[in-house]
């Protein structure tokens, strides 16, 4: 996580407020909102536990197979 240097002239109050405002914004923008991906929700004891982005999973598996094939080809 990289933050740009917060350059503020003034007292520490506005520095804090500015950081708080940023953190609140991040909390909304990074943790919530619509997601474009396939989805599976696996619930355990009525608690939603695992949400897996299907597109991510599928492309991982496909590419993994390709990686393995390439490896095999190299060793032959």
């Amino acid at each position, binding site marked *: *996580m990289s933050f740009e240097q917060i350059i503020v002239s003034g007292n520490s109050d506005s520095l804090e407020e500015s*950081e708080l405002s940023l*953190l609140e914004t991040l909390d909304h923008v990074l943790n919530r909102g619509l997601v474009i991906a396939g989805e599976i929700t696996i619930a355990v004891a009525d608690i939603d536990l*695992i949400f897996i982005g299907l597109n*991510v999973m599928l492309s*991982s598996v496909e590419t993994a197979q390709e990686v393995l094939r390439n490896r095999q080809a190299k060793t032959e």
Partner: protein
Amino acid sequence: MRLSPETPRPAEPEIETAHAEEFVEQLRCVADSLPSRINIDAQSVEQGLAKLVLTLIEFIRRLLEKQAVRRMEGGDLSPEQIEELGLALMHLEAKLQELKTQFGLADEDLNLDLGPIGRLI
């Protein structure tokens, strides 16, 4: 930012608290565990899969710990059983730490981003 009375609603979100410092401290922890780049087509496949697997194991490990504590509280374990259970869980924690290191993953990396639900751990 206050607007004139004609405008029915403020344009920017306002933040109101009497404890800015405390909230900054707490919210920083959340921000620290974020990835530095977001790519919905998984980046490094091998590491991505390792992350997924280790996150799930870590999650189960914590469930096992909770279960062990529950049994201990329930009073139906002998001191020997408690010791055995504790040792086993201790080794499991150490083993998982080893695996994380092997794959070059930090604690923060093992947190499955659950989209709408939040984080797994």
